[in-house]
């Protein structure tokens, strides 16, 4: 397994394409081999790609506010399909309304995501933790 293979995509019925391209560009620049699935990606499509490329991490974006529904059950599905050790990140406008980010973070960590990011995060810092987290799992 190559430690720099990662899967990127926007989950659910979400068509926001711009942020996705920015994350792709920055992570590629940071030396990751990014398989970008684009927008409207289902959980199984993320997992299909992760298996084929032997990815160390899946990075899920959700911008349109329905992340809570789209992202639930992802960890369990990964385990069911043989990706027990994969690093799972999620970020974006994950919920609707003005909820405290720490509350959102807890919600998604409980779902099994290793890290949860607000829309304002610096992608370079994401790259740094991504490298550490993947290395720690191997």
């Amino acid at each position, binding site marked *: *397994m*190559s430690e720099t*293979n990662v899967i990127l995509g926007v989950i659910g*019925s*979400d*068509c926001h394409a711009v942020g996705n391209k920015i994350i792709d560009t920055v992570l590629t620049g940071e030396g990751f*081999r990014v*398989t*970008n699935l684009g*927008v*409207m990606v289902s959980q199984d*499509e993320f997992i*299909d*790609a992760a*298996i*084929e*490329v*032997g*990815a160390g991490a899946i990075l899920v974006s959700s911008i*349109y*506010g*329905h992340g809570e529904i789209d992202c639930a059950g992802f960890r369990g599905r990964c385990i069911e399909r043989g990706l027990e050790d994969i690093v799972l990140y999620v970020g974006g406008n994950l919920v609707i309304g003005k909820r405290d980010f720490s509350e959102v973070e807890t919600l998604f960590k409980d779902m099994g995501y290793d890290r949860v990011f607000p829309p304002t995060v610096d992608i370079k810092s994401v790259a740094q933790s991504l490298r550490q987290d993947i290395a720690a799992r191997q």
Partner: protein
Amino acid sequence: MIYATIDIGSTWTKGASFRLVGDRVRLERRAARPTTVANLSDAFFGVLSEIVAGDPLDQLRGGELRLRYSSSAKGGLAVAAIGLVPDVTLEIGKLAAQSAGARLSQVFSYRLTASDVAQLEKRQPDIVLLAGGTDGGNSDYVLANAAALAASRLDCDFVYAGNREVADEVAALLAGKRLKVVPNLLPDFNEPNPDPARDAIRSIFLDAIVKGKGLDVIMDATGSEPVPTPFAVLEYTRTIRELVPGWSEFLLLDMGGATTDVYSAHLDTPSSGVIRRGLPEPTVKRTVEGDLGMRVSAQAVCELGDTTLAATLEAHNVSKADLAAYAARVTAHPDSIPTGTEERRLDTLLAGLCVGHAVARHVGRMTSVYTPEGEVLVQTGRDLSKLPKVVGSGGWLAKAEGFSPGAWFDGHLIDQRGRSVLAPRNFAYYRDADYLFPLLANLARDIPAAAARAGIDFLVAQETRSEHATA
């Protein structure tokens, strides 16, 4: 210059000769004889002597005659495709096999179990295509599968088109078998590369059909090699698309006794409001349906068991038992021709079911998804709904004057998951009435423009459908 072309089918060996006049070809003679299975050269030279006056071999040596021929050999070699994820490497493996002219006999994904290997040993495919993992991607599965295949009793050709990082290890594991290693069919997740695997399958196909059965005799006498018929027709579809004005987009149905083959030339262009999902589609595509055919596979047609079959039977007031009885009869006698109104009706029903299902499986799907930004259309596979032309070929469709495929496509407007089936809706239908497509496909290797033009010129226009609004 005279051009002779022969197609050795599983039941008939067909031939025709053409003369090149300017940039057009003129049909000179046609002939067909039952294929002599024990020694293919008997029927071949019989047909050749009918389509060429004088001594054909002498004229070949003198350069006055050009000869090209194809062989469908058992309806194509049986390929077992093994991929990793069903929708990813296995899907591309299936595409590679079908575009090489092969028949998919079995498919497997993830890790081969002991019973999977037992199934393979039981069916004994001609070729096993092993893929899985992008370059630098997963290698555990292909290594495990290669080890399982190495320990099996399978005596066939193997093609490895998986993760190149472990190609050497796979080659070492399969050292005792006949193995071809080709570039990965999915080197990068978003860039499928089915052609090297396709070419490897085709060349094994050629080596295999040439052995024995008299094809070697034909090669020695004529100095040229055969091509697999389905491969020739796929390339011919591409030639027509490129060289005949107005024919850049069309669908070709080739229905036989055992399989229904669908070829389409279509460039999918992105349209606004539509999001494409899944693997990118090739411009020219072939699919083969081994369970849809007019004779050998007729019984499988009655076992489709979906709502479309039930609705069709009801609409035509035919009981499933009657259709099944007829199917059993024609499967037992593949050379039978329907007699009487009732048999013709059942025969047409079988044809319609084959055509409808084969096209529904060939084309893509569209479904609408409601998002906070409004409705979005999600498309998987190819959208042929606006395709302007459909051609019917193969023994049955060539002769079926009153047959209208559009009505049968319409049995599949919506699939069982509620998605729109992107089959052609408003199109002109043409019949390859003289069943010349496989023969002209051979000719296209020498004179592509004239052969492509001739195929279209010889078509008989049937009907234009415009009564249905495009979905």
